[in-house]
Each structure stands twice: as C-alpha cells, then as structure tokens.
C-alpha cells in the first residue's frame, strides 16, 4: 500500500465545490479573470490553522458541501466559515467544530452538511491538494475551464489526492468575530457621474436586498432600483471584483471572483476588499445599506485587514 498519498473519494459533490487558492494574475488582458477564493478571510484562516503557506489550495463549497471518504493515507484538515459538518472518526460520527484541525485516517469521512446563515466555506488540508494548475494557480476557473481539477467543479466519485500527513496536528483558533452590521462600505465607482444626484442619494439611503442569484461570477441585488441617467451601456472596459455595475433594469450586480474580464455596464461604486468578505457571505434576503468612504480610508482598512490576519496567526493555539 502506498500511504505517501491521501485519497479522498467524493461521495457527494455538494451544490458547487471547487479547488481554490489566491487565483490568477497577469492574464486578464487575454480574457482570463482573477478568480480565486471568494471569501479571502475564511480561505486564509484555514491555511493559518494548519500552518500552511497562505496560498495553499483548499476546497471551497457553497451551502451544501461535499461528503468525502478517506480511501487511503492520512491527513489533517480544518473547516472554516460558519459551517455545520459531521466527521466519521474510527467508525463514530461526531459533530465537527470549525476553526480547528482534525486528523483523518483511512475509512474516516467528512460530511459538510450546510453553511449556517452564510454562503461559502472551506476545507483546508495540510500540504494542500495535488491537482492541475495554470500559470501558477490551482484555482478552478469554471468559465474558462482552466486551473485546478482540470477547470471543472468537483464531481461525485472522483478522487482528490495529496501528500499524506503523518503528524497529528491539534491546532485551533479560539474565537473569530464575524461582523454582522448592516453596512457595506464602497468607494466611488468609475461612472458615478452617470447617475443623477437624486439616484446616488437613493443608492445610499435606501436598503438593498441580496437576491437568490449569488454565484462566483456575481451577486445580484434587489429591492432598490437605481437607473443610470444616460445610456445603459458604456464602451466596454476592464472590470474588477467588487465593482457595483448597474444594468438596464436598475438592479445592481456586484462582481465576484469569476467576473468577465471586460464589461459595458456603468459602475456606480466599488465594494472595498475588506467588506467584500462580509458581503459575499450574506445569505439571500439579507438587507443592507451601502456606505461611501474615501479611497484613503479603504487603503487603511486593507492594511488593518492584513494585520488582523497576522494577529490571528499569533493567536494560533498548538496543543
């Protein structure tokens, strides 16, 4: 038997499970978007818990996660996000706890049952996953069919492989505070001047609702229609994650990780990176307000965010 590698058999694929890391750079000009883990915080947290490099590929799932059986080898995992899951360890089922490591052996199982009041979660694995890559990233980019798992979502019966862990890790993070306020902070978008003052006010003063239409490409909003003054189209230009674009019907779409590389809708605002993490986890029907801040504040918050990650690393408890 070759126990140098772990093999996970996919017993249930879940709603949409993919392999993700930090995503792609320097390819957007040929039509390949940035991709990568949609919730940067939960993704990195998993790797911090396992003392992995921060860009180690993990399994990202949405709502209903995968069910995986260890067919060979042994591995340390950590599940992050707000997630309900069961583990089968030595034949016994236990309810799992997020933000701590578990050591799995042959015949053990991971059963990710649901995200709780959120959309996405991660299974981080010590030593990561052995899979296909493209230009240095293992992220699966489904619209372009490139990257991890040959550019495809994880599917039932397939194997997920990697290098076995032999040391039992017992790492955990004591407490993570998730922000639950009702504000999503934005900076001015490149076409804010396409909108009437009255509509810009409406954009900030009235509540939006997250629709049921959430995926890795974008988040559709409802409940507050804001229509651009001039045309519904601009000359197509390069677009970025977090951009709030307004199509003809006036219901905003916030671009997420797998957005197209260029787009022709006017963009009223850009969600700051630190709040994108909060926004992407808001389940359908969540109500919230946009709040405008300056670029300087956004930059400062991004520095704070990186500091928070560093501090969490210091708080890691290794038993």
């Amino acid at each position: 038997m070759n126990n140098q590698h772990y093999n996970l058999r996919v017993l249930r694929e879940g709603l949409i499970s993919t392999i993700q890391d930090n995503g792609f750079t320097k390819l957007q000009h040929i039509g390949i978007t940035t991709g990568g883990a949609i919730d940067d915080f939960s993704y990195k947290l998993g790797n911090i818990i396992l003392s992995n490099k921060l860009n180690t590929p993990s399994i990202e799932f949405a709502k209903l996660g995968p069910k995986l059986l260890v067919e060979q080898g042994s591995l340390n995992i950590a599940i992050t996000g707000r997630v309900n899951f069961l583990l089968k360890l030595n034949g016994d089922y236990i309810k799992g706890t997020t933000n701590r490591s578990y050591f799995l052996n042959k015949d053990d199982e991971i059963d990710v049952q649901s995200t709780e009041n959120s959309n996405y979660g991660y299974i981080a694995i010590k030593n990561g996953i052995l899979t296909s890559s493209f230009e240095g990233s293992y992220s699966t980019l489904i619209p372009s069919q490139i990257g991890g798992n040959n550019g495809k979502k994880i599917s039932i019966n397939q194997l997920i492989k990697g290098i076995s862990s032999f040391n039992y890790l017992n790492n955990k993070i004591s407490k993570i505070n998730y922000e639950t306020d009702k504000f999503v902070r934005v900076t001015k978008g490149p076409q804010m001047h396409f909108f009437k003052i009255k509509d810009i006010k409406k954009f900030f003063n009235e509540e939006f609702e997250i629709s049921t239409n959430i995926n890795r490409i974008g988040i559709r909003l409802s409940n507050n229609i804001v229509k651009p003054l001039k045309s519904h189209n601009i000359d197509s230009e390069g677009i970025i994650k977090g951009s709030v674009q307004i199509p003809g019907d006036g219901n905003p779409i916030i671009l997420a990780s797998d957005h197209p590389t260029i787009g022709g809708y006017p963009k009223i605002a850009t969600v700051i990176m630190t709040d994108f993490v909060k926004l992407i986890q808001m389940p359908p029907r969540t109500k919230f307000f946009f709040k405008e801040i300056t670029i300087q504040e956004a930059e400062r918050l991004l520095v704070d965010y990186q500091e928070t990650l560093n501090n969490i690393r210091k708080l890691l408890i290794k038993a």
Partner: protein
Amino acid sequence: MFKSFSQISEQAYLIDYGNTIDIETNNRVINHFKYLQNLNYKYILNVVPSFNKLLIQFNPTYKKNILKLLREIKSTKYNFLNTVKKHNIEICYDEEYALDFKEIEKNSKLNFDSFIKLHLQTEFHVFMIGFLPGLPFLGKMKINSSIPRRLSPRLQVPSGSVGIVNNLCVIYPNDSPGGWNIIGKTKKKLFNFNKKNYSSISPGDQVQFMKISKNNFLTK
C-alpha cells in the same frame, strides 16, 4: 499620452484616453499596455487594455511606485506598434453558419453578399481581447446604420462563430452564450492552453478575413 486617471479601488487605477472608439485612441492605450507589459513589474497584477481605457491592478503596498509610473507615461509617447502582426483568417459565410444573416440584411440595409464584400474589404484592427479567453474585438467596418445586439442573447453560440454589432466584429473562441449577430464561422484556433502564447491574436494586431467555400471549410 492620456487625459486623466482615477483610482477605482484600493488596488486599481483606470486610465482614461477619451470617449470614442477609434484606432488612434486605442493605439495610445495599447502603446502604454505594451510598455507596462515589457516592464513586467511584480507589483503590477494586471494591465487590461480596452477601447479607450487602461485598467491597472496593483499590489497596494507599491502605490507610490505606480503613481510615479503613471506620471512618467502620461506625457510620454511610445511606439510599440511598428511591428504589427497581420492575421489572415478564413471564414465561411454559408447560411448554415451565418445564423443571423437576415437581421444583418434588415439592419444594415445591404443584401448579405454586399455585406460580405464590405466585411472582406475591411482591414480590422484588434481593439482588445476579453470577455472569454482569446476573444478579439475587431473594428471598424465602414457601415453607418446601427446593427444592435440580438434582443435575447443565444444561450449557445457555436465555437468559431463570427459576430457583428454596429461596425464591430468578434470571434467566439468556444461555445458560449452571446448576443452578437452571427455572419459566419472560422476554424482558426484563438486560444491554446498548451502554448506559452495563449492568445494567438494580441491587441493592436490586424485581421483580414478570407472567404472560403463550404466544401473547403468542411475539409479543413
């Protein structure tokens, strides 16, 4: 040379070269794009040219360096377009592939043969690559009437389809949803994952279409 630039996020600048879709403006965008590509700085994460804008994504730790670079290129003229690549692309306009030739006739007020003639006469400029990996945006045809997008986009445009909106033209590199009016099909491979030069066509290149018969097309 550009008009202005604005910071649109903690990690992106959008440079503005004007508000028209023309080759002269786009060439200024592409010159700066090629200049920045050649520098290949690690802290520049993406440089994305489009008709009249250039998007730069960067590592925010290096914002000062980017600002310095933007000031430097603002007033400098570069010339990276002396050696423009020309691509001859074979196209079959047979009705089996020209899914929207009737809409083209209706909107362009030309019969399809005259439209084809105009399409073949046009020396297309590659404005940008995007939307899908390797998808080129080409222009401009000498056509004055407006040819709008299809009211409801097709859920699946066949790979290799050549589409028209107004005086612009695209080629779909693979099966994909799309709203452009389809006038024919090519077997040219636009994107190759196994080669270092993934996209066979680059912004600033030229494209000339060459008509081939259905028989020829089928034996390719």
